[in-house]
């Protein structure tokens, strides 16, 4: 047993972080948000191709099929980075479509997927995986997340693929880690009562709880990626949802009034975390699954 990142995994992780820092930094994120005012639901196709070139979608395809030949743990690391950067688009659907839908692997085709009552990025996508969506069966919704256009489906489709849950959990993990960093950074800089607010225990302990929540979710998500086990994925999704939503909330609280502004990035993390929480299987179903397992083992 050696439950730590390998050197290769670290390199993959920092490579992805660098790619996103260069191609989708904070300015790009805010520009994308601003662009939604005039052209909502527009996807940066050039960035999508670059992700394809970097192997983001073909990561788990065998090398002889033009893929990178890596596994779920590596995919989880990439999606964690995507979650940190709030990278928009139907990333998971396209990733899962690589090798199935032609063009998905290299990012030339954008694939989305129906998931329960909703479908993300419906108009911007070239193809829909999973259950087909009939003409006119998807109605646009004014999405709470400016960077995730949504349509509502008349006939809810079931997404049973646990990998949607796992990769979503990885994105939630990245978001939780990022909002924890943001809170800590702000707490170090913001002065009130003649001291950085991070020197007050109330703020300090909020940040400590954020880190603990994130690191526990990390252990669960990484382990689920290694085992691929359904129960592990269910637990990881529950913990990562909780981490992403609560850390964004706490980050907002640490930022005080500034956290309530549109200009701060906190709300983008919170809103995306809400969107991701609705993906895959509901919390009620996940907990029933884990409860059932306790009985089966006992």
């Amino acid at each position, binding site marked *: 047993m050696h439950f730590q990142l390998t050197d290769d995994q670290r390199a993959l992780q920092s490579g992805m972080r660098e790619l996103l820092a260069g191609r989708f930094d904070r300015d790009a994120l805010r520009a994308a948000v601003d662009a939604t005012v005039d052209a909502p639901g527009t996807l940066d196709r050039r960035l999508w191709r670059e992700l394809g070139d970097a192997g983001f979608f073909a990561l788990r395809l065998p090398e002889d099929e033009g893929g990178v030949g890596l596994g779920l743990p590596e995919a989880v690391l990439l999606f964690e980075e995507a979650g940190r950067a709030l990278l928009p688009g139907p990333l998971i659907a396209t990733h899962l479509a690589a090798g199935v839908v032609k063009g998905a692997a290299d990012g030339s085709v954008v694939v989305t997927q129906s998931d*329960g*009552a*909703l479908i993300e990025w419906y108009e911007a996508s070239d193809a829909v995986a999973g259950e087909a969506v009939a003409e006119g069966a998807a109605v646009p*919704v*004014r*999405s*709470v*997340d400016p960077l995730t256009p*949504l349509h*509502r489906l008349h006939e809810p489709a079931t997404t049973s693929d646990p990998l949607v849950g796992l990769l979503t959990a990885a994105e939630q993990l990245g978001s939780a880690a990022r909002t924890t960093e943001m809170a800590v950074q702000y707490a170090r800089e913001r*002065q*009130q*009562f*003649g*001291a950085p607010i991070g*020197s*007050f*225990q*109330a*703020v300090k302990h909020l940040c400590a709880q954020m880190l603990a929540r994130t690191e526990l979710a990390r252990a669960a998500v990484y382990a689920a990626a290694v085992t691929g086990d359904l129960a592990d994925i269910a637990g990881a999704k529950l913990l990562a949802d909780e981490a992403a939503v609560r850390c964004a*909330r706490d980050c*907002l*609280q640490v930022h*005080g*009034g500034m*956290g*309530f*502004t*549109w*200009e*701060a990035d*906190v*709300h983008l993390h*919170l809103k995306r975390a*809400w*969107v991701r929480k*609705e993906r895959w299987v*509901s919390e*009620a179903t996940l907990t029933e699954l884990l409860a059932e397992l306790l009985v089966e083992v006992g």
Partner: protein
Amino acid sequence: MDLTYTEEEEEFRARLRQWLGQVLPGLGPKPDPNDWPGRRTYDMGWQRRLYEAGYAGLHWPVDAGGKGATPTQHLIFLEETERAGAPYVGANFVGLLHAGPTIAAEGTPEQKRKWLPPILSGDEVWCQGFSEPDAGSDLAALRTKAVRDGDEYVITGSKIWTSHAEVADWCELLVRTDPISDTVPKHRGISWLAMPMDAPGVTIRPLRTLAGSTEFAEMFLDEVRVPVANRVGAENDGWRVTMVTLSFERGTAFVGEVVACRRTLIALATEARKNGRWDDPSLRRKLALLSAEFAALWRLTQWNVSESEATGGVPGIGGSVFKLRYSHARQELYDTAAEVLGAGALDLDHEWVLDRLSSLSYTIAAGTSQIQQNIIAERILGLPKGR
């Protein structure tokens, strides 16, 4: 302990209900939230009607032009107007609930004559210039500077979180008239001024919230000249003057909101029954606990109001206890609403989703939950100051 209302109180309630029943149907449609002049007209039009019907300044002292009503009558007024769906105080919030009462308590007779009647009649709108980018929880650290020049102050600095700035006539402004130093602690050296919003040097920039709206603005002051005669209270005594304002609410600050939250709770149950989520006992349990919480918050409101009545209108310190629990409960209410809505919780067209976004400010605005806990610990429980 008496929870039944007196005959007099019930009469007051009945008259008010009758009047609301007559006047509300004739009100025009609500303006668009982003139409600020329209909102001013609507809100102040409502104030005008209250004025004409004799309900304006209900809780203000009689010598300030108010009705000198008891806190209980004020509670009934707020409860009934919310129940009837009457307009919210809106653009008149600062005038009626902060600046006005401050002037009533601390202003000269001339200042009262000048500023109070137009507030009551709905003719003049006030906004608030207290917080600054670097003075939030630590409000007393404010740095907007006022330098005396003859019979005027020359003011430079910036303010934030100002509501209705675009349509206000006056701003209740806190400025530093004596810089912080070894001999001047930060709570000293602050003065309270009434600044005309059309004075040269005042620039307003809307501040967009995470809900996408522009409820607030930033205000930049560049050598704005305000007559010394516009100062309420003594020079450098503005902190005390302001605290009179901030604690003036006698337990009634959130009456309408608690009524609204209890109504929302019922609407959540109805919606859950409709969409089938009511079958989940975990959801039923959450709604039931919230129901117990909001019922208790209503009782705590009645308790606080009665207490302030018993002490002759001086507000108790129970407000912090209420604020701490209420802010949290309101956020939980809308998290539960999201559970009821399921995927619908991602749809901005549902009013609960916007309300959920707004509720995120509750544990921050008007004293963060952290500050409230400090106040409770230090002022009520007597724990030693510290960090």
